[in-house]
């Protein structure tokens, strides 16, 4: 055994030694330049040598050669790739891809190419890419074959496949082989296996590939083909539905954010708080102010701007809410319809105040880097800002729920709303609880404004866009119940997004409104109605 290896080794050494003189030009640059003066026969030999270099830089040159775009510059005999530039040709260095000059057509001679050579080029290209030592290059090459299936690639792919060891690249190559096989004239059995392979790929490209081969394929394979296409379409429909659900959740979380403050001021306290939208708007403007300060003074902190804006927005809006409650609303308890008028007045004043201070135009609020871009999850595309808003609204919701159910303040809050006089007799300072409940609702609206500033225009009219939707969500979910708001927001969001593709955005929204109106007839107190005496109060 050892002897045999030794002999092989010596043999290789010898052949290399003998071959060396004839392969004097092992530099790809020289090899390509040699193409200029080579006959067809010599060119074929040169191609083998070029492929043997394994240098991926020669790929463009070979592609240009196959296309008939490789020329010799008469002046210095250099081989260049050319590209038409007006009446002239611009010369491109075959290896670096740099433009090295622009001369009239007469200054070049075309390097001729025939079919034998084209085949040789193709196999050389395949060797360079599909057999390249670089894993990434192989992966990319397989991907390329996958996207432009042709029977000519089949042999190459199969050769590459036999040598491939990396599992991921191998899988890709298997797929590439299947795709090429379908376009070739192999046996029916092999094609059937290939169809299964392509079908397992899924996606719209797979349908496209199967559709194109369906015209030329053997009759006996038609049922398999149709089944495969139907299967992929079924999968796609599922992914579409999933995408719709995601859009719905995303819209629902925006609705939840907008409505959750109202669920406290309107839902729990019974104030028809028309100024709720303005609290959201002021929250968004707080974000803008924070970002202004950061932009001018601490540009490094920009990615943290939202985290800084959250407490700022909460404090600003909570204080405004506290002032509103102490100044106006405390005189109106027990007269819910009149709170509508007073808060409407407040909302007009706040809007006009913001318009006077910042002007009526949209203010620019930037996205931090971690909120831009998107990622894919199976067949879904999810943008980061939507993802964060979903997570954020869930966080706010559960934090609020915990506050309501587990803290002393939450207990007092519920006590006051359920039976004010009894709560007062038990020593709860009801005016204090009222004031801070309203401040809490306003503060949450302000926090929502921070998130909404990322996906909407920050203008004095921002709040107006959300106020009606917020009321719908709270009423649909059931006044006085946070879970109702949660379920209401998500179901309205998802319903909206499922109606949208079939009837359009506006009609979808109209239908949702009509459905809410009809739903209220069926359950006049919303999805999760409060029971007991509090209802009639």
């Amino acid at each position: 055994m050892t002897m045999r290896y030794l002999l092989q080794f010596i043999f290789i050494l010898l052949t290399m030694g003998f071959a060396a003189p004839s392969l004097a030009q092992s530099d790809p640059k020289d090899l390509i330049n040699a193409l200029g003066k080579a006959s067809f026969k010599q060119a074929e030999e040169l191609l083998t040598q070029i492929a043997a270099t394994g240098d991926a830089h020669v790929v463009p040159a070979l592609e240009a050669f196959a296309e008939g775009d490789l020329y010799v510059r008469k002046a210095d005999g250099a081989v260049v790739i050319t590209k038409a530039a007006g009446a002239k040709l611009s010369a491109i260095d075959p290896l670096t891809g740099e433009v090295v000059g622009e001369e009239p057509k007469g200054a070049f001679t075309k390097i001729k190419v025939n079919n034998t050579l084209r085949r040789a080029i193709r196999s050389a290209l395949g060797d360079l890419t599909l057999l390249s030592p670089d894993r990434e290059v192989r992966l990319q090459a397989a991907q390329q074959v996958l996207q432009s299936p042709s029977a000519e690639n089949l042999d190459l792919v199969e050769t590459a496949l036999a040598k491939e060891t990396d599992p991921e690249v191998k899988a890709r190559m298997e797929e590439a082989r299947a795709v090429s096989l379908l376009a070739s004239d192999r046996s029916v059995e092999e094609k059937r296996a290939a169809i299964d392979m392509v079908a397992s790929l899924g996606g719209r490209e797979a349908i496209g590939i199967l559709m194109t081969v369906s015209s030329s394929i053997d009759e006996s394979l038609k049922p398999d083909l149709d089944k495969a296409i139907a299967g992929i379409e079924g999968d796609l429909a599922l992914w579409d539905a999933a995408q719709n659900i995601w859009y719905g959740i995303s819209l629902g979380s925006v609705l939840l954010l907008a409505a959750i403050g109202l669920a406290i001021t309107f839902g729990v306290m019974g104030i028809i708080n028309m100024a709720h939208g303005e609290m959201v708007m002021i929250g968004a403007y707080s974000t803008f102010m924070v970002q202004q300060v950061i932009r001018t003074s601490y540009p490094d902190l920009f990615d943290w701007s939202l985290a800084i804006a959250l407490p700022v927005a909460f404090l600003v809006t909570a204080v405004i809410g506290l002032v509103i409650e102490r100044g106006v609303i405390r005189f109106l308890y027990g007269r819910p319809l009149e709170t509508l008028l007073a808060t409407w007045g407040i909302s007009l004043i706040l809007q006009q105040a913001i318009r006077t201070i910042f002007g009526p135009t949209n203010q620019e609020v930037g996205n931090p880097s971690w909120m831009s871009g998107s990622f894919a999850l199976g067949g879904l595309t999810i943008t980061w800002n939507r993802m964060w808003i979903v997570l954020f609204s869930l966080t706010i919701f559960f934090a609020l729920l915990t506050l309501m159910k587990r803290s002393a303040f939450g207990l007092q809050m519920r006590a006051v709303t359920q039976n004010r006089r009894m709560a007062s007799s038990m020593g709860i300072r009801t005016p204090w609880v009222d004031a801070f409940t309203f401040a809490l609702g306003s503060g949450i609206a302000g926090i929502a404004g921070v998130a909404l500033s990322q996906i909407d225009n920050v203008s004095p009219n921002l709040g107006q866009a959300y106020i009606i939707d917020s009321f719908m969500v709270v009423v649909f979910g059931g006044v006085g119940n946070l879970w109702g708001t949660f379920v209401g927001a998500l179901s309205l969001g998802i319903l909206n997004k499922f109606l949208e593709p079939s009837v359009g955005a506006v009609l979808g929204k109209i239908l949702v409104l009509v459905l809410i109106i009809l739903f209220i007839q069926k359950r006049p107190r919303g999805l999760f109605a409060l029971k007991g005496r509090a209802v009639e109060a």
Partner: protein
Amino acid sequence: MITGFIFRALEGKIVVAVAILLGVALLVPALNLLTAPDSFFHIPTYAVSLMGKYLCYALLALALDLVWGYCGILSLGHGAFFALGGYAMGMYLMRQIGSRGVYGNPVLPDFMVFLNWKELPWFWHGMDMFWFAMIMVLVVPGLLAFVFGWFAFRSRVNGVYLSIITQAMTYALLLAFFRNDMGFGGNNGLTDFKEIIGFNVQADGTRAVLFALSAIMLSLCLVTSSAIVRSKFGKVLVGVRDAESRVRFLGYRVENIKLFTFVVSAMMAGIAGALFVPQVGIINPGEFAPANSIEVVVWTAVGGRGTLIGPIIGALMINAGKSYFTGAFPELWLFALGGLFIGVTLFLPKGVVGTIQQRLAIRRERKAADDAANNDKASDAALPLGQAAE
């Protein structure tokens, strides 16, 4: 019986209000048409149209007062009935343009030609006839109110919930009318009117007549509302407002009472819209905006709900103020309006007219109590002062 019904309506204040309205209906057109343009008493045509617009708003506020002030239904969607009446009138006016439009199509309004429509949608048929259009002004808002109220009142949707779904209704209509496919001119609405029953819409005479008609319609609706409120039915209505369950237990069909009032009110709002459109010259989906309906609620509240006269005064006052402020201090108008809402709800919960009435009533009863006390000092005071003051 009918005469009794009407006569009962003509209680002191209403007679005065109707007399003033009819006087204005004669005086303003006269000052506009008969005086020389440079005379001190001359009222320019734009002012006539502007005041006509205020009267339409006053009628809308009156309609809202009927349901809110007397039946306790706070509708945040009355702007929708107003706009529907306006659209019915607008469709008639569009059909009257005929071949004088930009595209010169004898049947199709301009926007339909622009959208490449070949024939008139079914709901535009018959709108070229004035009588039919006028019936539609009443029927369309009335029908919507009937269907909406039929469902809502039977399911006993009350209070805030009702307010919110009326708001949803007008919001849904706003979105619907913005769509070009609806066949109501989409975003731009209906405009560029030429003539109404053969008279030029722009002419001074037509404007003056429209103004007079607005004033007369307002007085007619005021008398009708007053008649309804002061009839036996009106007493039940107030009962529904104050203690709905009790009225139901007494055997009344509360939902039918509410439905009737709601439909009548919606029709009045429709009339207001129909008179509004030719004077303003345009109707577009903006009229459906929920904010508009809320504004109507504010006029009613400021004037005094449940007084019939109050909402009229409130609407006239606020709109006149709005015209003045937006001209003189455009920045300050919203501050003033917002402050007014807060001030009225906090300090004048019964509105301007309501508060005045209350003061007068207190004074009258105090006087009566004093008289009683003077007449019979020896006996225990028949009516203690405090009780009378309530």
